[in-house]
């Protein structure tokens, strides 16, 4: 036992229960032997002080053990230059961060290294930022992400599928999907059936978000999933097959539709013939067995088919134009189901036909002919109807065309709530907030507000203008033109 341990042993039991140890003969021991106090407690504490100080003052580095991690691979993308990077501390934590990241990706730059941890943390807390951050992380960011388990949603490459979390697999799949849709389909074919239910669900949602016509090759996999153990997975698989126009599920539904509806006289409500024979695919297509007591009525079956069969398949089944399909839905009071179908499948022709019945439906306008949408927006601007403008502009991704943006700013200016007339104030503010992040930034400032504007109106307009100015500066600094 060395001197220090002997002192500590005595200190633990107390000097009342033992005697002071004799110091050793080495140099520290000899120094300790010089220290005596009238009482044993004092001598012990003073010698312990000497030990503590010599230990602290004589400390040497711990022996090196681990090899340092392998350095990050060299980056291929240039770091965002200072003129663009300077905005980052100001937009972090604001809705403008998405735009900054998008501009950075378009410019072919990567984010400044010093901001990587802050951005990875931001993406951890906001999943919408993840796919925006992925293309601008650079090699350094991907390398860094492996050192923090919280950032495991940023997987470095495809080999890490097995070790990634559910969220990590989703992000990995989305990033592969962006780069190489074919490789992404291979990944699904390879892994989806062996994933946990929660992960199958995540991946199917990701697939739905990014569905393209080429995904028809995934049909066998999706077909298998329509009999999955998980209710959610079955529903998602059916939704995906619904959006793939040439899928067997759509073909079966189209055949059911053709058998159900007879078009003897296009002017009159078509007669419905409810099938009563067996339908071996009913359950996998999300329908109750027609021979069971739960079988749908003819009207309910029509509603289901109008909503869950791709419009192309429905039109082909009866060889009719979209207007006739709309006619059938209207005659049987199932327009909402068909609208839902048109919106889910983003079917412009059906949307155009439906707009005759529902000329102001904001979602149909979004997928219908652009000129109809533009005309509706123009009308709403002329009517100065903030409620309608919000409905029409809300879903439209930014940046909006310069003309539309400028007109909207003029409308906001003209409809500013005043002390005498303050209707729609909440909508007006919402519209101003929407315009701040979505309007084209290169538009002229409208003049000052009238004198009788409510007190807070100038603040809202200033905020809008300030955000547009900042975005304009962002665009300029990222070298993005006015287009």
């Amino acid at each position, binding site marked *: 036992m060395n001197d220090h341990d002997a002192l500590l042993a005595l200190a633990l039991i107390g000097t009342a229960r033992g005697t002071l140890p004799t110091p050793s003969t080495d140099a520290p021991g000899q120094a300790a032997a010089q220290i005596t106090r009238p009482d044993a407690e004092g001598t012990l504490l003073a010698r312990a002080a000497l030990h503590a100080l010599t230990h602290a003052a004589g400390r040497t580095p711990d022996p090196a053990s681990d090899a340092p991690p392998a350095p990050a691979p060299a980056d291929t993308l240039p770091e965002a230059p200072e003129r663009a990077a300077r905005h980052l501390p100001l937009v972090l*934590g604001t809705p403008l961060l998405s735009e900054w990241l998008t501009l950075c990706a378009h410019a072919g730059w990567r984010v400044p290294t010093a901001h990587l941890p802050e951005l990875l943390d931001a993406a951890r807390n906001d999943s919408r930022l993840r796919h925006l951050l992925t293309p601008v992380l650079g090699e350094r960011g991907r390398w860094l992400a492996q*050192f923090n388990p919280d950032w495991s949603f940023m997987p470095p490459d495809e080999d890490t599928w097995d070790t990634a979390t559910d969220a990590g697999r989703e992000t990995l799949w989305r990033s592969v999907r962006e780069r190489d849709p074919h490789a992404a389909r291979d990944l699904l074919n390879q892994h989806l059936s062996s994933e946990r239910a929660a992960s199958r669900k995540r991946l199917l949602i990701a697939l739905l978000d990014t569905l393209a016509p080429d995904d028809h090759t995934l049909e066998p996999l999706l077909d298998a999933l329509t009999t999955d153990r998980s209710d959610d997975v079955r529903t998602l698989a059916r939704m995906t097959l619904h959006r793939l126009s040439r899928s067997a599920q759509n073909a079966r539904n189209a055949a059911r539709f053709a058998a159900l509806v007879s078009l003897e006289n296009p002017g009159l409500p078509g007669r419905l013939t409810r099938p009563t024979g067996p339908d071996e695919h009913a359950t996998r297509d999300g329908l109750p067995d027609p021979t069971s007591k739960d079988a749908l009525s003819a009207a309910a079956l029509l509603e289901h088919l109008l909503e869950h069969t791709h419009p192309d398949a429905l039109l082909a089944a009866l060889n009719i134009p979209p207007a006739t399909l709309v006619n059938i839905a209207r005659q049987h009071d199932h327009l909402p189901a068909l609208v839902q179908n048109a919106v889910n499948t983003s079917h412009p022709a059906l949307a155009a036909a439906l707009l005759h019945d529902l000329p102001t439906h904001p979602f149909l306008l979004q997928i219908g002919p652009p000129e109809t949408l533009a005309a509706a927006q123009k009308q709403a601007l002329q009517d100065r109807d903030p409620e309608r403008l919000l409905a029409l502009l809300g879903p439209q991704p930014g940046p909006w065309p310069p003309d539309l943006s400028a007109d909207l700013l003029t409308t906001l200016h003209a409809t500013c709530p005043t002390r005498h007339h303050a209707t729609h104030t909440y909508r007006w503010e919402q519209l101003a907030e929407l315009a701040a992040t979505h309007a084209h930034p290169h538009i002229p400032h409208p003049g000052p507000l009238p004198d009788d504007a409510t007190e807070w109106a100038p603040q809202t307009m200033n905020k809008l*203008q300030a955000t547009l100015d900042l975005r304009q500066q962002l665009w300029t600094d990222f070298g993005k033109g006015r287009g």
Partner: protein
Amino acid sequence: MTPTPTPLTSDTVLALAPDAASAHAARKLSTPGKWQNLNAPPGSLWGECQGSGSTPYLTGVDLSGPAFKCSCPSRKFPCKHALALLLLRASHAETFGQAAPPGTLQTWLDGRAARATAERPAADGNPATPAGNAAPDPAAQARRRAAREKKVNLGLNALHTFLNDLIRDGLAHAPTRPYSDWDTQAARLVDAQAPGAARLVRQIPDHLHDPAALLAHLARLYLLTEAWAHRDTLSGTEQADLRAALGFPLDSASVLSGGGIRAHWQVMGQSVTEEDTMSTRRTWLVSGDHTALLLDFSAAGRPFPPALPPGAEVQAEVCFAPGTFPQRALLNGETAATGPARPADGLTLDALLDRHGAALALNPWLERTAHLTGPLHLLPGDPWHAQDSTGRLPLTGSGRTLHTLLALSGGHPVTVYAEWNGETLTPLSVQQGGTLHPFRPTVNA
């Protein structure tokens, strides 16, 4: 002629914020649309920002400090308007005009310039006594000192007895003592005007699970009681070390009147620690072989006074408090930012520990020293380590700081400025591409 200060980057400006809320508010204000009349005449910035009132606030920044003035009622300093003005200068320099500031601001700027000129000759070895301070009465001073010494005597005698009792009973019994024992003892030392010793007593419960650390901590306290009893045998600087360890307030007037070193100081970094309701901000300055530690205190969540910009070089007069290892220092007069800090060579970890040991040999109560060290490899883990050819030491700091350091290193060796407290290294800044990248201070308990 005052050298032209380099414009501050957004990160540096945000580091000047007295708290996170100010930084956040400033970011929201830093768009030209919220300002009227943005101007940057030589050496200063000014602008008018529309607040909630009818008249806009008039905000000015003297870039030589930087120093701030704003007509808003905020008690934070610098206020969000002044910070936003600096942020705008960093991000939207082109929106600033050249107009001269209005009368009130110009008077303030002229006053600062006049003071700066008046102070400069004082650096030639002829320090002026602080104006307006009457010479203290020596007799009254002696009486106050005697009264304090009497109180400290009583307090430290009681502490001496308490420590002896602890050792006589055995430290194995210490964890079973009620918390009130330690609190009462600490409160007595506060009453005895020895807050430094009280602080050490309050820390005892932190070591109860580790007998070796507990004994070392008690031994350190014991050393204080012994040194106080024998203070007459100590040299003047040793007595100063003892007084500082006991928590006697620093006699700023005499430190400042003792004269200082007027030089270009590199602001190497800042750290903040919090004990009870008191936060302490440490700012480390380096000039040649001199290292100076500036302390700022903030009680009960009040904002700190304005900070020197980390990562910058400032022209300042630094007066060291007396001590065997002079480190604690005060600034005399105004400072002027002169540019970014310049890179230098770092110590090996072994040399760093040597320096720390040499300092401890002079002042056994020294809590921490700071050094430029590197090149170092970073080893992430729990805990993180810094490693060079001489070995490795544990690394501590917020996750954000450590990961930023790792990101900047890219896995290659880096040179950092770090505090060493005998246990762990806390990185405060890193040399990166010829400049010093400071980390934002995070509060450590």
